[in-house]
């Protein structure tokens, strides 16, 4: 299937081999309104960080609520205003093979998702509570 940002992703430098379809529970930082347009925007539209032509098109998720809360706590210590950018809440959802391709989680339970074209994750995720 075609990736949502297929054209933008520089496939010459983007190694998608570690990514594959899977079914997994996922947690993401979002704003209080699940329909907020920023919630599932890739980093390209949310920062001026354009230095990684691959990473800026992937969405970040966590395997568990605890791991996502731990991360926001760490981020907040370094950048107190970070929730103004990433969102004040955490949403939970179930990703499946129709949503896109994900990689393996790292030691902090973080993984990335390249969405397939036409996917709207706001319909699959629900707010579970504030991130802090």
């Amino acid at each position: 299937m075609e990736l949502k940002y297929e054209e933008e992703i520089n496939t010459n430098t983007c190694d998608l081999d570690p990514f594959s379809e899977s079914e997994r529970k996922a947690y993401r930082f979002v704003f209080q309104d699940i329909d907020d347009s920023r919630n599932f925007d890739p980093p390209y539209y949310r920062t001026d960080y354009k230095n990684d032509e691959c990473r800026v098109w992937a969405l970040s998720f966590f395997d568990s609520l605890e791991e996502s809360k731990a991360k926001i706590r760490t981020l907040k210590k370094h950048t107190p205003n970070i929730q103004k950018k990433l969102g004040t809440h955490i949403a939970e959802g179930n990703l499946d093979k129709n949503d896109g391709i994900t990689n393996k989680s790292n030691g902090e339970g973080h993984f990335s998702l390249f969405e397939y074209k036409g996917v709207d994750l706001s319909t699959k995720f629900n707010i579970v509570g504030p991130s802090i």
Partner: protein
Amino acid sequence: MKKIHDIGSYSPLDKKFIGTLLFSAYPITTVYSNKKGNPVIKEWVDCNKNGTVDRYFIYELDPSVLLFFLRGEISHKDLFLSAKNNLGFIFEKNRDEEKKYLITSPQDLPEDYLPEYDTYVNPDDIVDYDKIYQYFNLDIYEDKDYNNYYHKSISSKYNAETFNIHFKTGSGIKHGTIDTELLGITTLEFDNLYKELVFDTFLGKDRGSLNTKSKSNQELVEFSKTEIYNNIAASYSIFIRPKYSHATLFDKETFTESVANKLFNLIEESLDSEKLADTYSRYSEFVISSYLNLMAHVKEKNLNMDFAWYKPTNKAYKKNKVNSRTAYQAVSNINNLSTTEKDQFDVTGKFTALNCNTGHFAFESVNEEEFSGYLEKRIRDSAVSLNFKDFYKITIDRAIEKEPGKADPKITDTIISHYKMDRK
């Protein structure tokens, strides 16, 4: 009219992107290199309500400071506060368009733009460590010490000759914290030593005990005061300066420099018994006593510390390491300078006090000179035969012990024999 350079048209990011410091998924801290080849850090700090305008703080750093951060020796907040020339740029960017710049100091940033106080980097969070390390050749700064760097920076910033007491290890010392009692006692002992060195420098070593309450000495007493004016977590490090500087128009060596030289010479000499024997007489007993107290405290608390001093005008720097082993050595060397003189003489007079159990006596000579001490054990039982009415001729063994750090010698008198006189 002449064209004035518009700072607004200067991009603080006139540089090359090197790598991301923190974090992989959320790159809030990135590293660039400017034309001078110095690191320039870009920190995301804020955004507007709908997230369309981002605000960053951008600042240049000494490469060594970047290394201190990567090594976890300084916090993220310290990184901000180490901005070169204490300046940085705030700039706002709207996705594709740079908006405006402000020049500001990290000290003036809103509190929520700065990392929390005790936030240090987790090595696992550094994204492009190797790229950044190699680009800035950080290996050449590996032997640099942050405490040393900070000491010189703070001293230069305030143009103050500065002592540094760096508490490295010991009971009650952790990274960024120290037991109040330990800090209090150590700084007090140091302050006392500094005062006595000031008095020695001003009045000479034969000055005797100074009445610090006397009005005539108030100016000197004020002049001997110091203040702690900065500290860093390192494990715990404090920076002390004289409270009042003494202007020396014609002397190359400032007053504080002279005191600092005496202090560090004393520390060094005290570790070498031969050197100490030659130089010890240069110090008053009050300086030696204060120094002994400080070293005894270091030994008792098993401290591992550095004492240092820096003069920013000529970059003169002194440092000595002190720990329980060197403190023991110093105390031992000084105590070995004790001398004991012996004397023996006869005195005629009457006993004025006697304790038959302990053998303690008090004796007044016919010349109204007073003596006290103990009967030698061998003749202690004879105390019961003595009285306060008759005249006695006593033979006294006198030991005069001169201890370093004590102004007055310790005199110990022992009666080794006594005879009742038939008449005066």
